[in-house]
């Protein structure tokens, strides 16, 4: 009864300072494209992608958010019902690393997950390609230490520009989100297989 198999929708939120490359990472993963000409994200936007994990077809709904602090006040609507949160920083910008704690706590506060201690997070250090790493200011060890202090969250170093490690990072995200979804046992997260396909459709606000 193939047609009765249920498709799982996983909601992933991407957070981090303005200009760390959240939109670029998402577009590289979904569209396999990189552009120097992204607009700054206003409010939030999402893309969807279907992935096969352990013979299961899941739809990732990836929410890209605005990085400027004041836009966090709009976050509560976007964060709710999330299955995984991706924190992004720029390895060449110390400030974007220092604010990770704030993003982490703010997400927990606003999303209000039932088990905040075990909610799946993942850390992504982006732009490792820049000037062949010579401008890098946040060493890998420091990032890993931070991850350990937050309950061993997985860490990936990526380059959205060169498509380095982007797939691996998102695959890990999907797996974590799926595990979390199992634990949550929420019924209305699944939609019937026969529902219209939303594959790789840019969505959100059209303006």
């Amino acid at each position, binding site marked *: 009864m193939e047609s009765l198999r249920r498709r799982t929708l996983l909601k992933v939120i991407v957070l981090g300072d*303005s200009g760390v490359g959240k939109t670029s990472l998402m577009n590289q993963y979904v569209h396999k494209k990189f552009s120097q000409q992204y607009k700054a994200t*206003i409010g939030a936007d*999402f893309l969807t992608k279907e992935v096969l994990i352990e013979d299961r077809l899941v739809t990732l*709904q990836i929410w890209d958010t605005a990085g400027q602090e*004041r*836009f966090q*006040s709009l976050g509560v609507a976007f964060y*709710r019902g999330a299955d995984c949160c991706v924190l992004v920083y720029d390895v060449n910008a110390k400030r974007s690393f220092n604010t990770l704690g704030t993003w982490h706590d703010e997400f927990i506060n606003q999303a209000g997950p039932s088990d905040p201690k075990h909610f799946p997070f993942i850390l992504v250090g982006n732009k490792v390609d820049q000037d062949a790493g010579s401008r890098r200011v946040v060493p890998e060890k420091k990032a890993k230490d931070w991850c350990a202090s937050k309950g061993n969250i997985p860490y990936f170093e990526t380059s959205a520009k060169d498509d380095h490690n982007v797939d691996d990072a998102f695959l890990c995200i999907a797996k974590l989100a799926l595990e979390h979804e199992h634990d949550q046992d929420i019924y209305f997260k699944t*939609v019937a297989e026969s529902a219209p396909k*939303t594959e790789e459709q840019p969505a959100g606000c059209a303006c």
Partner: protein
Amino acid sequence: MFGIQTRDVADDFNPRRRKTLWNTPPASMPAAHTIRYTTPRKSHANTHHLSVKFEDLYGFMVKGNVDDVNVLNEVRERIRQQGRVWWALEASKGANWYLQPRISSNGGEGVISVTSLKLSVLTNTITLRRLIRKGVPPVLRPKVWLSVSGAAKKRSTVPETYYDELIRATEGKTTPATRQIDHDLPRTFPCHPWLNSEEGQASLRRVLAGYSFRDSEVGYCQGLNYVAALLLLVMKTEEDAFWMLAVLLEDVLVRDCYTDNLSGCHVEQRVFKDLLAKKCPRMVLVSLLQNIAFRDNPPGVGCFIQ
């Protein structure tokens, strides 16, 4: 056609204040207004599928097919006709007739509170309103916008040197606002040749940073970069663009949409959500089924900010 003018006026007190940032052709030149194809025209049956690139009025490169170009040319023809009406009025009423002090009409249309009113002023106001609704010719926009929006009046309440002094005060200062502005400069219409140039970005930076110092409650909110960039393209001079931004934020738009907690945006979204539920209930239902975060706020923030 849209080359950047780098001419400095030598005898000007301060070149930046009045320097024309860049040039658009006057509306009275028909040839300059017709869109030119960058792809050679072919007498092929499928020409309308042909993708062409063309430059719009403000120097943006637009991609479209031949039908799009035809529609745009039609629009331009209408703008040109509208321009003729303006020129004819200028000839009969005198240049700058539209800059005359306007009457304030309280309580909406037609109710005018001034009793000792010159008939000519009244007719001018009515004519101006009618003309503006049909579109202001691009060459007149800087003057008309500045006057009608109240930006000129706002500027007249401060010393002439206000903008220059404000810019001087912001130079070399780093604030959270300027940091964010610097992040956004290369991401503001990078497809536009002038805005992608060093000169254009420096100009945009001065306007935005200047405003962030003028109004610490708004400071800088992402999205204002697009507003200010378009104002620079329309207004032609940096200072006029600055005053337009000021009048928009302080008197015209919902200012709370840009302040620290974006409270105005929250209000606008609730109103929008209720309106949508009332007018398009099916759309709301579908969004709910697809689990789009619609329960609290519809995803339309950008519309209220940009």
